[in-house]
């Protein structure tokens, strides 16, 4: 029915990117996203494309998984392109009625769409090579310094990872409740929106009640296993920067300088 949501988009294979520290991947992806907004000419786009292509190749994830993320924003891409093509003033190439298609418009549209593709594919590489739990752990470590300002970083990370684990359980539960309520005569196939919304109530109420009960049980189970907050907790797979992580930082730094240099020269 549903593929394993707990793994998110993670594609299980062994590659250098998979083995990188999640912190490195998060920070590098962030830097790459910034770089996408710095490029303005052909050479810059070429550099960004080349970098992305190399990353895709060394991630060993099949290309079709990479472009899967693009499907979701296809409409946004088309809309962006169309609006830009028609609304940018400049040298008119073609007029259809009141609408003018300009050379500048096409240029801007291509640029915007390329940027969107870079952003989505850049984050796809991160998501495909890292499990959600490692990502959460990476974020926890990145934001750890904020605990000094009384921000409950560990607690938030713990909540996110527990929530991830509970998604499949609650999905199963939802399925059972829908079946149970169908048997009792609730019509889930009604075409009228108002009826459909009303029919969600007998599903959502039991789901919430059960979620609260589960949360209570889980809290007791966690306490029974000596959970008492972040403080002195250790980890089974603690994050430690390796040589390859330093190299990755170096690579992204060189790439960013290249983008900046290209921007200045051309």
């Amino acid at each position, binding site marked *: 029915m549903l593929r394993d949501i707990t793994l998110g988009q993670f594609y299980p294979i062994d590659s250098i990117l998979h083995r990188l520290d999640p912190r490195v991947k998060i920070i590098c992806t962030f830097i790459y996203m910034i770089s996408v907004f710095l490029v303005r000419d052909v050479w810059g786009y070429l550099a960004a494309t080349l970098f992305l292509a190399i990353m895709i190749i060394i991630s060993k994830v099949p290309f079709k998984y990479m472009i899967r993320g693009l499907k979701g924003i296809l409409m946004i891409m088309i809309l962006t392109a169309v609006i830009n093509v028609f609304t940018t003033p400049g040298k008119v190439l073609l007029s259809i009625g009141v609408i003018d298609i300009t050379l500048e418009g096409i240029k801007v549209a291509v640029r915007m769409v390329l940027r969107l593709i870079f952003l989505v594919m850049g984050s796809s590489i991160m998501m495909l090579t890292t499990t959600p739990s490692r990502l959460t752990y990476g974020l926890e470590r990145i934001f750890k310094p904020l605990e000094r300002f009384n921000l409950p970083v560990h607690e938030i990370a713990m909540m996110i990872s527990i929530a991830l684990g509970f998604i499949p359980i609650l999905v199963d539960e939802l399925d059972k409740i829908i079946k149970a309520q169908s048997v009792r005569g609730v019509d889930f196939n009604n075409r009228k929106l108002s009826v459909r919304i009303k029919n969600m109530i007998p599903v959502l109420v039991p789901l919430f009640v059960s979620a609260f009960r589960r949360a209570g049980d889980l809290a007791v189970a966690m306490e*029974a296993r000596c959970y008492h907050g972040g403080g002195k907790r250790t*980890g*089974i797979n603690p994050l430690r920067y390796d040589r390859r992580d330093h190299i990755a930082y170096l690579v992204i730094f060189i790439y960013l300088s290249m983008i900046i240099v290209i921007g200045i020269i051309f």
Partner: protein
Amino acid sequence: MSLISTDKVTYEYIIRDKNGSVEGINRAVDEVDMTVEQGEFIAILGSNGSGKSTLAKHFNALLLPLEGTVYIDGYDTADSDHLWDIRQTTGMVFQNPDNQIIGTLVEEDVAFGPENMGVKSKEIKERVKNSLESVGMEKYRYKSPSKLSGGQKQRIAIAGVLAMKPKCIVLDESTAMLDPAGRKEVLNAVMELNRKDKITVILITHFMEEVINADKVYVIDKGKICMSGPPRLIFSNAEILKEIGLSVPYATLLSNELRKRGIPLRDGIVSNEELAGNICQLLQTI
């Protein structure tokens, strides 16, 4: 010194009406005295609402007695300085397999206890490996727990407790939500731990078939211990068990009736197979 000893432990739930005023008091545990020695296999048998789960939660300081005291390995559970020592000594496995899994990977879940105790990463890895091996789940180390069966999930929960190196494991109706195959799986795993690693096991259940291998059985009803002793003795009092709402297996009832009529069947028969086997043996001796 006993591993667990309770002295007149009493616990009450206050029942409130809609407005929050006290409507009544439910005495869930009523002056319970019991002692458990290191390495024993103890069963606590009781029907729904008998107070057996409430009692179980006292062994790990999840609940503190209203009156009386509970000593775990010499520590008073009311002494908050030793709370984590107590919880480490007696690990608990609960009823619903889904509601006690914390990690998104089996490995992470088993590591949760030792991580909380601040054990070094290298040792956690060692413990995770060993605990998964003792419950026969080492193959699933890097799998997602959501893909496992109920019995397997409970074995993971047992491994999670084992990784804290406890002296005692309390199974609070851990088999109640499982199918017969899963129940057997979990019981075999704990019996193995009891036999091999001398870990004390306290099994809380309402299934009579499960207590047959225990060293000692406590039968609890309305918060009081109404019977205790070796399983065979308990089984021969099927009438009392039936009275307090436990479903006594037909094989047990039948063998008790036959014995009353002078047929020398052995005590403590719980399954049809056992009864048939015993009758066949008798027929052969004639």
